[in-house]
């Protein structure tokens, strides 16, 4: 089975924990680590080069969108947010064209 190397990025520990718990049902996903803000995430992504990230949008300091703009290595992204208005923006960002 293919192994998907993943990172969880969210400012709330509870939210990261919950995501981790839910991902346990998917053995093909390996969670490499967690980041609580965009700066930590940028470092970890550079270091671990994950294939997939679960990304929160509103975080202290830079937002999830800001992070994506600065990445050299851009993994696949699954946005995690409670802001419905961000959902539309997320589709625009994820459009590869």
């Amino acid at each position, binding site marked *: 089975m293919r192994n998907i190397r993943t990172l969880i990025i969210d*400012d*709330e*520990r*509870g939210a990261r*924990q*919950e995501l981790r*718990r839910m991902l346990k049902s998917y053995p093909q996903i390996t969670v490499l680590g967690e980041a609580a803000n965009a700066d930590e995430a940028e470092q970890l992504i550079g270091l671990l080069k994950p294939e997939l990230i679960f990304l929160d949008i509103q975080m*202290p*300091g830079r937002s999830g969108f800001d992070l994506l703009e600065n990445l050299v290595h851009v993994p696949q992204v699954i946005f995690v947010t*409670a802001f419905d208005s961000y959902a539309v923006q997320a589709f625009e960002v994820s459009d590869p064209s």
Partner: protein
Amino acid sequence: MYWTFQCWSAAGNFRFDFAVIQFVSDVGMYILITHLYRNFANKNRWQNLSLKKLIWRMLIVIPVMGIFYLLVTISKLYLVRLLFLSHPSQSFTEFFSINAPGILVAGIRLMAIWLLAYHLYHYAKREIRLSVENARLELSIKQSQLDNLSAQLNPHFLFNALNNIKSLLYTRPDAAGRAIDLLSELLRNGLYKGSAMLIRLNEEVDLVRDYLELECLRMEERLNYDLDIDISLSGLMVPRLCIQTLVENGVKHGIALEKHGGKIEVMIKEYDGFVNIRVLNPGKLEQDKTVAGIGLHNLKERLDLSYHHRASFSLYEMGQKVCSEIKIPIR
């Protein structure tokens, strides 16, 4: 004016130039008398009296003004006579005793009409102003209730809270239970607490405490809070949600933007006849305050209307913190 002419035609010889002089001087004098009265009434704030108190005063003012009218009018009439009438006339006392009763009656009638019109006009104006203010206040309160309710029903707050509860379920079931209690309490407060515009200070503080405790369960060590409240003020009535609005703003625009979070400090003290409510949060004032603007603008409007501009709201930076402060007069 009518009475003046009456007086002259009764005397026999009507002259046109005379009539003009009388007319002009009459207008001038009566404007002066009524203007003096207006200043007097303004100074004593008679415009703000209730109708009952006003009528009482009118019973005294009308005869007094009538006498004023009499004195001024009769002196003037006599003076004009003396100056312009070639043949010498009666002595002043004689002239006075003949004309005084008629002029006095005319004066009382004229003054009564003028005073009633003057005060009724101001009374009506005040009533209209008050009812407009009340309507605005009511609207403003409804708006803040709606704001608060939508803040708690807003998907972000609600889903975050629910999501947090879900994660607590597996790790700290007790905390999850507590979070559900707190969330219900907040929703109940928004949904059912009626439309009273004032609330006891301690009830408002309880609401703030529930909110902070719930946010703490979610943000964990990133959110600390400290409530420093003078207990003797517990029974004081304050506008609903006035502290809650400030604290919510502090969490959203202060704590949530700081990586390491920080502390919300609420201080409620009595100072110089005012209750001083201060909410401190880390961070800087945002230059474009359009987001924070609506809730705070509404709060300011409610304070202005409820306390007739004697209460104040201010938002300023203090060291590395943002301080939002409300001062409410203690009656």
